[in-house]
């Protein structure tokens, strides 16, 4: 019966991964019209519940002009919108790779002079599917279940993490090694 909770997102709480222990079981009453006894179970659950500000490592799942999508394997509704990528970033064709589009962070040293006069900075791409990316949790949302879903839309995500890469030490861990 506890299997109902595993794999489920409990609204405003998080994704239930496992039962940790059972502390109490009460009841065993059979309600009229029921074929089985009902018990009240008090238990502790192991829940994946990220907090705002937490730093998490996840793998790059896919990306497009709107930003990145990351996955932890057991949870993959993690989005880094383009405005939370490190500044300045652009989505542009990769000349060495069939002009496939990818995200680029261009790091320029600030040296007090007019930035437009500087030679271009160092380019750091984010384009390897599966690479580990470190992000900061910006917000966690639990959208309400839609009454109807258009046929081709993405499956409903009961918990969505929005992340940010806009800080020192964040982004692909290969950048910082």
């Amino acid at each position, binding site marked *: 019966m506890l299997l109902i909770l595993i794999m489920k997102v409990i609204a405003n709480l998080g994704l239930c991964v496992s039962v940790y222990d059972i502390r109490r079981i009460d009841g065993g009453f059979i309600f009229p019209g029921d074929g089985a006894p009902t018990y009240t179970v008090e238990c502790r659950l192991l829940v994946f*519940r990220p907090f705002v500000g937490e730093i998490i490592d996840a793998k790059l799942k896919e990306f497009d002009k709107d930003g990145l999508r990351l996955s932890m394997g*057991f949870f993959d509704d993690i989005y880094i919108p383009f405005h939370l990528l490190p500044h300045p970033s652009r989505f542009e064709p990769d000349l060495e790779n069939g002009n496939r589009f990818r995200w680029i962070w261009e790091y320029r040293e600030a040296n007090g002079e007019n930035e437009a006069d500087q030679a271009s900075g160092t380019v750091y791409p984010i384009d390897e599917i599966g690479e580990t990316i470190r992000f900061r949790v910006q917000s966690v949302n639990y959208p309400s279940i839609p009454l109807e879903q258009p046929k081709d839309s993405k499956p409903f995500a009961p918990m969505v993490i929005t992340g940010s890469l806009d800080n020192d030490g964040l982004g692909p861990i290969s950048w910082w090694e």
Partner: protein
Amino acid sequence: MSGEEDENAAELKIGDEFLKAKCLMNCEVSLILEHKYEQLQQMSDDPLNQVSQVFEKSLQYVKRFSRYKNPDAVRQVREILSRYQLAEFELCVLGNLCPETVEEAIAMVPSIKNRGRALDDEAIEKMLNDLSLIKRFE
């Protein structure tokens, strides 16, 4: 959900749910799930019985992203970090990411330098050194 806008770990404001819950590091979750996995394998009469996908993938994730594998080391990490008057989630982020320098630690957990905290750079450095010693002798 209205609590979400006010929630911000950087200012030590966390959701009410966290007040009763215990925060665990990846290495601790790894030990718990591995133990659970062994229990389930032993209890199962059906050799084809699979644990849930979420469970398996969670176990994979925490194993992959645990800095400490040995149960004694994990216990020591929690014990050492507990000495420094850290909030539970600060402790967990530090235990998960194991920053090497004081600057890294402050970048990851800016709240450790909030006004009024008793954590100066020296204390942070000592804490990080203690953590890396455990790693070395694991």
